[in-house]
Structure formats: C-alpha cells, structure tokens
C-alpha cells in the first residue's frame, strides 16, 4: 500500500511552506469500538504533539482510516491538499511550516531524542503488536472483536486473519515472534526503566518544554492505561511513577481529558505511592507491592477492570477515585 513518488515529495516540499490552515483534520479509527492498542498509542501521540504545538485540528473517525492513509498506518492528517501519516512525517511537516518543538535542542540532544524515539518504536510498538496479535488471550478477547467490528460477516474474519498474518510476518522478521510473553514484558519493563531514568525528576525529557518524544511517550502510556484484556494488568504494572507524573504533566499541557479507566488507574497508583511513602504501613500492604521502582496496583482493582460482569463495582470505584483524584 505505501506509495512514494519523487515528484510527490518535491511538490510536498515546495508547497508545504504556507502557514498552518484552520481546517486540518486528523483521521483515525473509531476510538470506542475499533481502535487497537498500537494504533491508539500512535493516534494519541500525534494528537498530543499537535496540541503541544498549539496547532488547531479536528479529529475525524473513519472505519477505513487505515486504508485511506498513504502509508497504510494511522493516524494521518489532511492539511489542504496534503495527506501526511504517522508521527515523524507529521513532525517534519509541521517543521516545514515553521512549527517545531525541538528548536531549542542542540544537535546532540536531537540525536538523543531520536534514539529514544526509536527505542519506543522498537520496543513498545512491537510489544503492543505482540500482545494484540500474537498473545492468544488478548487476540481472542479484544483484538478479534474490535478489528472485525466495522466489517460485515465474514469479511471481518478475513480481514482480521490477513492483518494478523501481516503483523506476525513483521514480528518474525524482527525476531519478536519467538519471544514469550514474559520476555516481552521484561523488554517493556527495561524500556520503561531506561526512559524513567532519563526523565528522572524533570518535567520533560529535554529541558522544560515538551518535545515529540514527550508526545510519543505520552501516547503510549495513555494507550496502555486505556487497554483491556488479560495482558493489560501486567503491562500497566511496568509503568513507573515518574512516567506517570510525566503523563499528568502532559495532560495539563495538552488539555486532553482522561477516560474514567485512566483516571481510576492513575488515582489508584498515586494512592499506593503515597501510602508506600508514609511510614505507618502494614506488613500485608507491603507484601502486595511489586518492586520498589514500580508503581503497583492491587490485584483486586485490576481484576475489576477486566471483568465486564463486575461493572457496577468498577463504577463505584471510579466514583470514589474521582474524589481521591481531586485530593491528589
């Protein structure tokens, strides 16, 4: 599906220097019933990037966004006559229009930023693809249902099968297909660790203003918090508290709203961290905690999110959490 023409790119280069128009549209799959974890991450990252740049845009959801995109991946933006897909080309496109988040960075910092961005693409994206398409529990419970939701039977089945084969082919080429779920989660953990080490106590990865790397990280963290299925819990556990703080900071900058599930999880996480920091804690509480640097969530709360039958319980929890959230 990807098509590239030299003339196209030259035309893009020449005409792209006009200012950012008001009628820019961002196309992505349906957020509630269709979008999958890896796509959601990249859509949220692009949205966050555009908001960080203060570039106006409108989100338009289409069932065939993936097929409309020139690269075959979501999201893509339509800016006048131009159609640009995925985060990095969009960053480049915005830079051509004179809007850049990494203007203050030195060359080394820019290189470092690219390195971290490719770390995220190499680890988090592949892990998300693995969990969505290879892990049979998530595939059967979430991916299959969501991916085929926009097609009539039996086209949904055919499309899901074709896409699964394509993803498996990609993962095989990258030697990810042979990994076990534990290895994948360990990779995610390592990636999160090194990113939170880089972040440390700072507000953003580079300096005191957001960069495309912040947008990308933010997109992935949110997508993981929004995810569902049997592997969502183990995945969420890998998010460190500094990454969580970073997420909240990005929320403030972009003025995006958290979903109830995200709000609930974030609140839970902060509650636990606070409880952990306070000296009087019971032994039983200590025993439920994960490793020191991890944010941990009690198993009970995690289970409520994944079982649909226990919705009322979840809602009650969320109501409680909202109160807690304001306190935090």
């Amino acid at each position: 599906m990807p098509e590239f023409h030299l003339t196209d790119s030259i035309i893009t280069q020449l005409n792209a220097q006009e200012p950012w128009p008001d009628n820019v549209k961002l196309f992505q799959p349906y957020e509630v019933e269709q979008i999958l974890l890896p796509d959601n991450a990249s859509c949220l990252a692009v949205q966050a990037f555009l908001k960080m740049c203060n570039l106006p845009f409108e989100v338009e959801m289409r069932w065939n966004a993936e097929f409309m995109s020139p690269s075959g991946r979501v999201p893509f933006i339509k800016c006048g006559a131009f159609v640009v897909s995925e985060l990095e080309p969009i960053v480049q496109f915005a830079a051509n229009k004179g809007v850049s988040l990494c203007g203050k960075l030195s060359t080394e910092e820019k290189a470092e930023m690219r390195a971290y961005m490719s770390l995220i693409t190499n680890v988090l994206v592949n892990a998300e693809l693995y969990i969505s398409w290879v892990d049979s529990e998530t595939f059967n419970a979430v991916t299959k249902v969501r991916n085929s939701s926009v097609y009539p039977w039996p086209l949904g089945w055919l499309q899901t099968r074709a896409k699964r084969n394509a993803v498996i082919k990609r993962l095989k080429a990258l030697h990810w297909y042979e990994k076990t779920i534990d290895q994948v989660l360990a990779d995610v953990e390592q990636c999160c660790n090194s990113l939170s080490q880089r972040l440390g106590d700072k507000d953003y990865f580079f300096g005191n203003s957001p960069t495309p790397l912040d947008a990308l990280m933010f997109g992935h963290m949110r997508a993981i918090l929004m995810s569902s299925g049997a592997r969502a819990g183990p995945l969420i556990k890998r998010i460190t508290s500094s990454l969580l703080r970073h997420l909240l900071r990005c929320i403030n900058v972009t003025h995006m709203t958290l979903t109830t599930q995200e709000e609930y999880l974030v609140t839970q996480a902060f509650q636990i961290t606070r409880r952990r920091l306070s000296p009087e804690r019971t032994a039983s509480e200590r025993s439920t905690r994960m490793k020191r640097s991890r944010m941990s969530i009690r198993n009970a709360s995690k289970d409520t999110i994944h079982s649909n039958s226990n919705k009322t319980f979840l809602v009650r929890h969320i109501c409680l959490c909202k109160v807690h959230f304001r306190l935090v």
Partner: protein
Amino acid sequence: MGTVHAKSAHGDSVGEVGGGLFEFEEPLEMDDEPISKPTIKLNGVRARVDRVHVDGLNRTKDDIIRSTVDDLFHATDFEDVILRAHKVRRALDAMGCFRDIGVFIDVSSGPGATPEGLEVTFQVRELSRVVGGINTTVSENEGNLVLGVKMPNVLGRGERIAAEYSMGYRSSSNFSVAATKPFPQKPLVPVLTGTVYQQNHEYPWSGYRLLDRGALLDIAFKTSPATHHNVQWEGLVRDTSVLSKTTSFKVRESSGPQMKSILRHVVSVDHRDEAMFPTRGTWVQFTSEVAGLGGGVAHVRTELLAQANRRLARDLVLQAAAALGVLHDVFGTELADHFFLGGPTSLRGFRQRGVGPHCEGQATGGRLYWAAGLHLYAPLPFQGSRTGLASLFRSHLFANAGCLAMPENSGLESLESLKLVRVSVGAGVVVRLGRGARLELNYAVPLRAQPHDVHAPGIQFGVGANFL
C-alpha cells in the same frame, strides 16, 4: 461406441439402447439406388429412421446422447430426416464434448429393417480430457496474456471445468475457475455455472485500483430462441486502494475493503443477424441488480442497452444505439459502483470516463446516465474490400450524445441534471476482433461539453466489447 435402435414398427418410436456397446458397426452398404437426375421432391419420399448409430463415444454418457438423437425417430419423410439430423448435429456440437461430427444417412438393412427405413450414423471425436491454451485478450483498454486449462465433458454429460490465469501489462494478475453444468433436456435449456475469481482493475482516470475476489453463481436459460436470461448471485470482497499520493481526497475516502452480495438478472433479446457488424435487427439488454443481501453495500442498479440496425443500400448500414442507467443507493455505495461515461468506445471525443463530475481531474462517476449513438457503416472505400481480410474492417461516421449526473436529491429534480447534453461527432475505422470485441480508430470532435468534462478531441483509439 453406442448404438441406438428403433424397435417399434410404428411411428411413435422410442429410442433405447440395443445391442452392446462393443458391437461392431454394421458395414455400410454402398449400393445406393441410382438417383435420377431430375429433381426429386425430398419431402415426398416417405422415410423413417430405423436405427441411429453414434460412433466414437468414449466417456460421454449414453442417456444424454439418446435423448439428443431421439428427435430423429419422429421423422416422416426424407427431407425431415435431413433437417432433423442437422438439428441433432448442432445439438451435439453445442454440448461442447466433440471435436468434429460427421453424419451419414443410409438405407437400413439386416433384421428388423423396414422397407422405407433409414440408418443414421453420427461419427464423433471426443475432445481430449484436458485442453490447455495460451492466448491474449483485450478488455477495457488493457491487454492480457491468458493461460487457460479446460477440462471438457468431465463427467460425461457436457460438464466442464475451466481455469484461467492472466497477467496484464499493468502488472495485474487475475484468475478464475469456472465449473459449468448444462441441462440440455430440461425445459428452457438451463446452464448452471459456478465461478471463483480474483480480478485486478486499475482506473487511472479515477485514481483507484480494485482487487475483487469473489464467487459467482449463474443460471442461464432461454425462454425463446432469441431471448436469453441470466440469473446470477455474486458475492465479492472488493479492495479499493488509491493509485498515488496525489489522488484526490474524495477518491481516497472510498478506499478500504468492502463486501458486496449482488442478485442480478440479465435479459437480452437479440434479433440481429450478427453481433459485431450486424446489417439488420434489434438487440436489447436489460440488467437489474440488487445488492445488500448481506455485505456492506446496498443499492439497486438498472441498466438498459439497446441497438437497432437497418440496411440502407447494398453495404450501407445505419445503426442506432442507446444506453440508460440508474443507480439508487441505500447505503455504502462507493465510487466503484457508480456509472461512468466517456471514452473511445462510448461517448467518443471525451477521455475515458471524461464525462460527468470530476474531483481534481479524477472522475468520480454518477448515479444517472443516458447515452446514444448513431453510426453509418460502410466497407472500406477501395476495391475488394468485401472479401478476405478487408471484410473485417468497416469505416463509419458517427454522432454520440449523452449525459452523466450525480444528482444531490432524488426525484424529479434529478432529471433536470440529465439535460446537460454532451455531443460529439467524427469518423473512423472499425476492426472486428473475433466475435466478441472490436477495435476503433476514430477522429472525433466534441461539439458540446460541460466545464468539468475532460475532452479528447482528435485521434482516439479504443478497444472494447461493448460500444455505443
């Protein structure tokens, strides 16, 4: 070898298999009575058929042959025998099981022979079990190399399986596998066909590419010798993708896979003497289809094609053709379902799909159209143009008119949009390619066009099976 005997001595003979399959053919006796030179009224010579032999049968089943030749036993005079023998020969030929068929008529002899009895022998050669071939086809302005394998007469009753794989020069590959089962004895002579296919199409004029994968079930039958019906069900998955990065966004919006289930009825009445260069007669084809029994597309689509021919002078033929189409969208109808108009075999003088709404130079099609054409055909204007290779050529003068519209609202107001007529005139040369297609080289001048139309005045070259 099968032998069919008529046993009953009376006129109402019923054929039945006599003897054995391995019986030797009775020696042909060559003692024909010398027929006197003066003309004989053949229908005055009383005759009846005693026996029918069919030689050369191998895997073809007897019952189907028996019921085909049955007709011969009803003959009452010699002329009747000849006519019926010819009819049977044609019926055997239409089965598609035999390579060549010879007919011998002889007086009958031996036990059970009646005084005016005749024996009819059909000598047939069956087609081999597998027939392969490589040929080239031309369709909608694309040439293809076709590799084909056919298995005629698989089960002995005219059933055939045909598989085809073709490569187009636009790097598209298509295949189709079709299984056909004729029922020559049933009323209306139905033919049942099941096809599985994959087809690639590229439409640079609209900026998209289609990949169709589907199955087609077809029942063809005849209600009169000239009236041909097809009832079809087609289920397909259509993958639409854009051709380039600069494709207009409107075309881009319709990309993605779609599933379609179509019920179609095609009826055609053909009274012409020939399909490609007719000299007289009319032809009407009416197609109506309903999509939406399953799948993500629902619409009703009807199309009418008509043609009338009239010989003016010895070789001068006047032809009038008309086409009309209406598409009513219920939901999910995309670009590929629309009607398109214009091109070297439809509305000449315009680019392929050049008539009607365009978006950034790319045709987006319409839901209503009409078109008409008037041709005056004559042989090539030189000596000996009526025989040999030159008989494949015709020169013609033509005038085309038509309109394609995409009305916003349905109802009577939409008919207003059909008044924006496009007209073109021109002259050219037509070459017939076999029985099904033709090639045209024309000089066309568009006389009336609308602002967004893409016209192509001057020399135009086109190949097509359907033409206006």
